[in-house]
């Protein structure tokens, strides 16, 4: 309950900051009590759906791939280890925006028959970039589990798969949950870049409205609030999940 209050206060404070100050503001443009303001507000909020969908789908795709990239890093095989390092270093160096542009505008030249909708171009770019970071997070999580756990699992002759599935990963996941939550927040923000190829998410909607209403300040202020609310909701969700999984081992 206390946390809820903190969150509410944050939002109220942000609103006051944006509304309170002086001249030049024209909140009428998004005033829900007027008809046009209500329509504008509804238009801005309609971007929520794609922002959320882009981020969730990208994260859900990136998690298993990130794990599959991380695991070879623990192999004694030079090639498998090398694959992990090369993948992480290459993909990590790729800026999200560049990935979006390259996949959406560059790739069709190579494969003219494939016509990727903007949504899927965005998902591929976001999840690709995310896999490198998730792979490193998984690596850190798995590394943090004491060697004795693996040895005990080996001594009861569990296979590699069973060792990972039942002994190492459940423990590692609890430890990296905060980091994955962090990546989800990061993903929510990065999804704004997909607006450049015409995805109708939050930023795109704001841009469209800003050029017709000439009220950039108010419209982008609403945008700031939209992201704030979204991310506060996500971090509350992650905290709830952490509690549910009893992730805090220090207690």
């Amino acid at each position, binding site marked *: 309950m206390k946390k809820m209050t903190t969150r509410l206060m944050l939002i109220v404070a942000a609103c006051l900051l944006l509304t309170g100050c002086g001249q030049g503001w024209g909140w009428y443009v998004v005033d829900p009590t007027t008809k046009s303001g209500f329509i504008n507000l509804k238009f801005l909020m309609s971007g929520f759906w794609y922002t959320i969908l882009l981020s969730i789908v990208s994260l859900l795709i990136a998690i298993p791939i990130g794990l599959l990239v991380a695991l070879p890093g623990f192999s004694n095989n030079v090639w498998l280890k090398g694959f992990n390092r090369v993948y992480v270093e290459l993909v990590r160096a790729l800026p999200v925006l560049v990935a979006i542009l390259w996949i959406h505008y560059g790739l069709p030249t190579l494969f003219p028959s494939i016509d990727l909708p903007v949504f899927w171009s965005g998902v591929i770019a976001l999840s690709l970039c995310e896999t490198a970071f998730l792979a490193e997070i998984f690596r850190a999580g798995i590394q943090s589990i*004491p060697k*004795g756990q693996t*040895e005990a699992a080996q*001594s009861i*002759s*569990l296979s590699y798969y*069973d060792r990972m599935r039942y*002994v190492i990963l459940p*423990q590692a996941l609890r430890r990296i949950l905060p980091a994955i939550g962090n990546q989800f927040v990061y993903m929510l923000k990065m999804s704004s870049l997909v607006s450049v190829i015409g995805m109708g998410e939050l930023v795109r909607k704001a841009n469209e409205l800003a050029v017709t209403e000439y009220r950039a300040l108010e419209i982008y202020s609403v945008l700031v609030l939209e992201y704030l609310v979204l991310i506060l909701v996500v971090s509350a969700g992650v905290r709830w999940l952490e509690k549910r999984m009893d992730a805090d081992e220090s207690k």
Partner: protein
Amino acid sequence: MSAAIEMDQVSKWFGDFQALKSVSLKVNKGEKVVICGPSGSGKSTAIRCVNRLEKHEEGSIKVDGIELDDNSVNLVRQEVGMVFQQFNLFPHLTVLDNLTLGPIKARGLSKAEAEEKAMAYLERVHIPEQADKLPKQLSGGQQQRVAIARSLCMEPKILLFDEPTSALDPEMISEVLDVIVALADTGMTMVVVTHEMGFARKVADTMVFMDQGEIVESAAPDTFFGQPRTERCQRFLKQILQH
């Protein structure tokens, strides 16, 4: 009849440091071998080689007649149980799940069969009432007894103990040793690395003294404690028995 464990001229290095120097050791079926020696003498490394938690680099190890290498390691691990100094229980699983994981996943038992077996072994280590708790809710002595029960659930032919009481508070040592002594009476083949000499005298068929990666002395307990041959062994026993 083949021996339970046959180590022949086994050597092992960690970088430049030679941890095992041509170690040869034969353990017969049903035999109890206690290995002692100063820290860093290679005793843990020696038994960890038996289920390939460490790979030996020279020589050969046969477990129950099977030559131990990368291909046979899973076969061998089915025969060999291990109890660790730090217990190494799975902290996210209940005691019962710790015990049934191996039998279900590696032995293919049904959940009911595995649980029945697990409860039987928990009785044997005197803590059936703790079955639904998490390891962190138990005392060190109880945790180690759970670890012993976990190895037993795999029905191994050989049990290895790597300093099973070294991480325990003094008042918990005897409850664990009692369980191991009772186990020894069932005819299980056991190799125990320990500093508990009273216990060693009670259970050992053979005492082995290691120093600097070598087996320096190997004898029946009476001879070993009564007339140690080498000077190194005499010195070690004098130090350890003074306390």
